[in-house]
């Protein structure tokens, strides 16, 4: 068990005024078996009234709407959590067994899986570790070659990507193997950005694995959101109107 202080901030800047800006943030970490949120405060600028709900996947959603002209949206959270990775959540949504938008394999990924599946027998945890080992040899961790819209199949074809891509490919393999798996967005490694990893269903509970670093998940990982893939977990989604042509996003995170 470990006490973590976390902070996370995003600055969204536009090169022209925007208005009628609706947003949905998945930024307040959920209280789960493995993590208790002791304190958490959210600040949003410009000042705007927001409402909280919990979505289908158990994420805290903060929704807001800014009617008037503005050129930026900043939000940050600060808080303290007690993380105990020996405790596990044990409720399973059946949809996690099925491929989703970002994890649906193409012929290349299906072929890769079918060549792999007979080489190794084991239970779900052993399979997850095995797949993660293979991926860490095969896929190069490389920034800038993929985007947030890259699918597992696309990243696999490139043999390169970032944590999001490693997670999608591993989830795709696990689901092909009949093991339910979910995507996690969160904070780890204090690298200044958000991280992503995977949880798989052992048959009894959820267990975390970090394919980008090819290691198990420990008390230094804080879950912010979870879902079938990146699409369910996006930390901020927004729609706005205006003549802006560019938006700049700066993200800072800290975990101590």
């Amino acid at each position: 068990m470990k006490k973590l202080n976390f902070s996370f901030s995003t600055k969204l800047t536009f090169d022209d005024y925007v208005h009628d800006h609706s947003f949905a943030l998945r930024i307040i970490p959920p209280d789960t078996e493995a993590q208790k949120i002791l304190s958490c405060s959210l600040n949003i600028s410009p000042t705007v009234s927001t409402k909280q709900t919990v979505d289908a996947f158990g994420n805290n959603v903060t929704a807001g709407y800014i009617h008037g002209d503005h050129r930026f949206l900043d939000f940050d959270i600060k808080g303290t959590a007690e993380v105990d990775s020996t405790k596990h959540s044990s409720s399973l949504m059946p949809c996690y067994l099925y491929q989703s938008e970002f994890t649906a394999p193409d012929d290349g990924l299906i072929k890769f899986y079918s060549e792999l599946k007979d080489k190794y027998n084991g239970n779900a945890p052993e399979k997850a570790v095995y797949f993660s080992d293979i991926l860490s040899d095969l896929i190069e961790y490389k920034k800038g070659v993929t985007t947030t819209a890259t699918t597992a199949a696309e990243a696999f074809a490139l043999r390169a990507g970032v944590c999001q891509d490693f997670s999608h490919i591993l989830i795709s393999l696990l689901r092909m193997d009949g093991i339910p798996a979910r995507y996690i967005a969160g904070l780890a490694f204090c690298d200044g950005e958000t991280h992503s990893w995977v949880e798989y269903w052992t048959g009894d509970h959820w267990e975390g694995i970090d394919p980008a670093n090819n290691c198990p998940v420990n008390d230094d990982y804080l879950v912010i959101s979870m879902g079938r893939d990146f699409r369910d977990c996006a930390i901020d989604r927004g729609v706005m109107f205006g003549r802006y042509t560019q938006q700049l996003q700066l993200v800072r995170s800290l975990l101590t």
Partner: protein
Amino acid sequence: MTQQNNKQFTKPVGNADEINELLRRYGVKFGIYKNGVFNEQFFPFDPIPRVISSEDFKSIEKGLVQRVNALNEFLFDIYHDKNIVKDGIIPENFIYISKGYLAQCEGITPRNKIYSHISGIDLVQAKDGEWYILEDNLRIPSGASYPLIARELTRIAAPHASSENEIIDNRNYARLLKETMEYANCGGISAILTPGRYNAAYFEHSYLAEHTGSVLVQNDELFVEDNILYQRTYSGGKTRIGVLYRRIADEYLDPLTFLPESLIGIPNLMEAYRSGNVGIINAPGNGVADDKGIYYFVPKMIKYYLGEEPILKNAPTYLPFYEDDMKYVMEKIDKLVIKDVAEAGGYGVVFGRNLTKEKLEEFRKTIIAEPRRFIAQEVIDFLDLPILEEGETVMRKADLRAFVLSGETTKVWASGLTRFSRNPDSFVVNSSQGGGFKDTWVLK
């Protein structure tokens, strides 16, 4: 007249040209996209009404109420406890592979637990008089306005028809719809959301708004603030919307929950909906219940949820997913109709008898490769109805879309949309496939 037999009724009511001219003038059209180009077409009206006897209607009515009630129970179950899967009635993957299943809707309970407020159930009558369900449409079934306006115009063109025949007045649709909308209302005005005038059913959207006293809105005048849906007023104020009868598909409904690229949706509508601040007609996620693969299980649902025997029959259906059914389908493929479960509007429907030997062989392989993608049905030899073609009466295949409205109680509208195929060899009656429609008279 109560024992009126459909076969005897072959006379046109009013002058077809006159009514079609009135329909044109009223702008009764529907649009279709073909090869990416939007075309508006007139939906040809046939003046010979379809007549359903009072006795026939009573049994259809009972069967439809039962079916829609079971489907509503099913939708609640699937988005909550999933008992029907746990109890082994429906295989799990039929639910989760279905494109209509939306995980984002898990745990949401719409007001009064009603998911399918407006159900369009397609039936055909076989030559032996038996009615069969062809498919359920629980997302945004369209078509109710056509028989409504046709009846209105028939009344103008042939004022005596209503008094000479014992027909149940169908003008109550707007009232039934209004009551249904009121029952789903979470506080505020009623609105009908249209994607705009380049939509296939735009005529209907405006017609229904006018007749239910709802405002017809497009997304650019709506916004969600504090998880409440508002319409912006001309003076810069805002009016709360309590129920939204949306005529856009689930995937486009909220770009912050579903397709981010949707330009016709309302950001954070799903947050307002989840919070119980707005009713959405029909509920998002209903596609899981009108999936062609799930259709097979509807009679089982009726037994499971209601403990009753199904009153209306499904067309005999086979799921290649099951081994025995696969065997049968492989053997009899040339006699069956095969439907792609992902398609709608008459697309993806193949009659085995129309395929060459080579094509059949190819199709068998496709089915073996993707068994879950198809269902196979016996071809029902359904009743031909008389239609008027260039002054001659000819017989054509027709179906019936019945409209079932679920509010405080479940009611069947005593009318419906009868669509016919203009092609003598075709069994496909969808309007997007070039068919026409006629008025449907239910006798008193």
